């Protein structure tokens, strides 16, 4: 019933999502380094 008689914030979770994306990009550096760690084939 939300939205018609009560206020429903559609973008409430946008903040957390941006944080997650940040974390992903940072993690990508380590993942890339991880792949380069051993002598590449």
């Amino acid at each position, binding site marked *: 019933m939300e939205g018609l008689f009560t206020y429903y914030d559609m973008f409430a979770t946008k903040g957390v999502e941006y944080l*997650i994306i940040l974390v992903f990009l940072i993690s990508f550096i380590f*993942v890339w380094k*991880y792949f380069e760690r051993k002598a590449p084939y």
Partner: protein
Amino acid sequence: MEEKTVLEIKEPEIKSFSDFWKFFKEELKPKGKIFTPFNVITFPIMIVGYICILIRLIKGLGYPVTNLSQEFPWGLWIGFDVVTGVAFAGGGYVLAFIVYILRDERFYPILRPTILNAFLAYVFYAGAIVLDIGRWWNIYNPMVGNYFGYNSVMFLVAWHFFLYMLAAFIEISPAIAEWLGLRRIRKILGTLTLGAVIFGVALSTLHQSGLGALMMMAKNKIHPLWYTEFIPILYFISSIFAGLSLVIFEGSISHKVFEWQIPEEYHKAYPGIVFSLAKICALVMWGYLFIKLIVLVHDRSYPYLNSTMGFWYLIEVIGFVLIPAILYAEGYTRKSLLIIKCASILTLIGIIINRLNYTFIAYNWFVPLAKKYWPTPIELLITASIVLTEIWVFRWIVNRMPIVRPAPAWARKLESH
């Protein structure tokens, strides 16, 4: 190891249709031994499967044939054959994209088998949809006649199946031309492949995500953990690493089976290919996990995690995406084919579970146990026979056409890439 049979390729002189027919009949005869263990096991299953298909056509989709009910309109055939089969065939467009668009020549040796696999998968698995269609005599309605239901996702998916079969056929047709030795046609087909690839990749992105969009309108039936607005995106990305995992898994088998066809330098290059594929898979899965996390947060469905369905969701996400991703990464860094093979098997099972979740496990999850769906023997038999027929046809083609072995000299010159 039995002694390597000599690689004799004799090119037929095909001038007229009769030559072709004569040559074709002669090629129909099986090559190599007949009573191998694989043949002995699979042949009876296929025969029984075909009988079941007949039963299905006569008796319709009632209980003894399938366990479908009003609560579960889609069962194993759509869930496994069509949706998972097409996801596995995703390797075709990914490799075509890498080889033809990113011009990365390293993957050339496994390009042709993957495309053949994709083409056959579409023909057989997507073909299975005809079995699941209740009024199959109207199957041509969306294609021909004036019943174009352009408002429906299924319309898009149906047309794309048809078009992608064409695109894949054009991509594989050079091999057929080489088999028949038709030089001029081979030249023309060579020019078409780039167009077919670009059209194929565009088509594939759409209907891989389209299969997800089919479930978009079951909002109140699918468990909130699985239902999101981004199902198409999840389906598309999971089809990338699903396809690649199948390429790795099937590659390892076909390398053993078609050992005698593969030249030395392809053999040496094979591990390198597999490792780079594993790397791509690991990265894509890593991205997929984060998308799942974002979707979980976006739909605020994380409180459902501590319920029984939550437990099953975690098995699917952690057990079948995170762990295989780690295994792929480990396999890449440790350079061990075995770990990568295990990871690919796990991902394949993961994709099957994910697709079946959407079709009948997390679908109508609140229905009591008595009404729940589980596949009947006939359904399993028919699915198995379709898969096995596809493998048999694959083997027939690979034994004859230059799929696994390099193209004949004159054809290689044509490759102006």
